[in-house]
């Protein structure tokens, strides 16, 4: 990786789906090593489309995406998918193997790891999310919060440089939500978190960008973004009743 360069650089990214629907209109975003950034935006703003570009599932119609200096393109897809760990919204989509340990091993095994090295990766990743004792369980016997944590472990096992979370707090009860926040905070890794859970963004991410109608319309400290009433109203972002970002305590 280039010293000092951004871990993730998205330049003038535009994309239209094959049916003609244009989802992204020139997105620019640079994320430095170790940052935790929230991508905020209403439903249909293009958040998921953006995420699918970060590891090359979707190919840029125009513009480019670079991860650690490496352009996201066909010849580097394997390395790109190692560097970018994508955690999908529904853990049942992500966990498809018969047991938790098999599932966590899936990614690193695709990278060519075998034997002891593979087992060590699996154990470490499960320990990072506090699920080591569930290794032999089938995923459908876990609670939703536990499944989401295992989904995070499945990409941590690939030793990614950037962790991309799509709506990490959706469907979680408050305790699972806090547990997941503790885990994310404990990781020494760059995090990009797509969400419309604004308090969660404020709690976890010092920086936030607002994606609306396929464009980045704001980029700044999360608290400043959330306090900008005009901006928030213009892009269908609403704080939950009774929540005031000015008085909410932020944890570092």
């Amino acid at each position, binding site marked *: 990786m280039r010293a000092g360069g951004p871990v993730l650089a998205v330049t003038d990214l535009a994309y239209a789906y094959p049916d003609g629907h244009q989802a992204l209109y020139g997105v620019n975003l640079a994320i430095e090593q170790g940052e935790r950034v929230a991508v905020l935006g209403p439903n249909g703003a293009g958040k998921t489309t953006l995420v699918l570009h970060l590891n090359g599932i979707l190919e840029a119609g125009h513009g480019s995406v670079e991860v650690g200096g490496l352009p996201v393109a066909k010849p580097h897809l394997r390395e790109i*998918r190692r560097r970018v760990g994508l955690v999908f919204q529904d853990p049942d989509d992500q966990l498809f193997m*018969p047991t938790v340990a098999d599932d966590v091993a899936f*990614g690193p095994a695709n990278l060519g790891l075998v034997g002891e090295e593979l087992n060590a990766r699996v154990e470490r990743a499960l320990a990072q999310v506090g699920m080591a004792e569930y290794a032999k*369980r*089938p995923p459908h*016997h876990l*609670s939703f919060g536990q499944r989401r944590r295992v989904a995070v472990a499945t990409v941590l096992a*690939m030793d990614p440089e950037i962790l991309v979370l799509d709506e990490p707090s959706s469907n979680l009860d408050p305790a699972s939500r806090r547990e997941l926040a503790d885990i994310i905070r404990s990781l020494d890794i760059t995090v990009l978190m797509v969400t419309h859970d604004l308090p969660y963004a404020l709690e976890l991410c010092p920086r936030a960008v607002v994606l609306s109608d396929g464009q980045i319309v704001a980029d700044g400290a999360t608290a400043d973004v959330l306090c900008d009433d005009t901006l928030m109203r213009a892009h269908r972002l609403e704080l939950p009743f009774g929540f005031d970002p000015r008085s909410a305590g932020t944890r570092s």
Partner: protein
Amino acid sequence: MGAGHGHRLHYHGHSALHRMPAECKLIALLIFVLAVVATPRTQYWAYGLDALALSVAVACSRVPVSYLAKRMVVETPFVVFAVLLPFIAVGERTQFLGVTVSADGLEAGLSLLAKATLGVAAGLLLAATTEPRDLLAGLEGKLPQQLVQIMAMMIRYLDVTSDQLRRMRIARESRGFVATQPRHWPVLGHAAGALFVRSYERGERVHLAMLSRGYSGSLPGLTPARASTRDWSVAMLLPAAAAASALAAWWAQ
């Protein structure tokens, strides 16, 4: 969400039968069933021998008989058919428990019942002593990889899909719908269609998630426990007993 292991047919335990590699048990089951089916149908004592051998295996597995007995209900359609046979078959008539029935039908019914019961009981014993994951691992390398992958997915998503079906039914019933007449069937058809579309979409999302973790067409191995000669010889005891009783029955006939 239970904290249980395995699937509904699995009985958690640590007996020799539980520890035996899945591939040995699978092959043993296959040979056992073939031997039972090949037994001539009038030699009822041969079925008795098979049943005895199978009960020894059940005893070794420490799976309670009541546990297996309850799950034998899957056999019901065969039982109904076997009971009907003596009455609907034609040919020579005979007396059985004071009722005049077809002699051929009676023989066929009894042997069908015996064969089905032995087969189902042996299958249940395999399911009770083997985790689904181990079964898949046992099949790996013996079946084409794509088939094993499809089976793995099926096991994983069976519960997810049946849960979805259950939620859709509850939502239907909460709005006052109970299917009682054929004119309600279109609604059930729509529900099945909706479930299909949802499962199809889930399939696409699962595929994306797999690609994101570097999937390139083959699943990494499930690393099964390798079966030793000793495992094989122990596993073959049951089918050997069944094969011997089938041969003896042919010879006695």
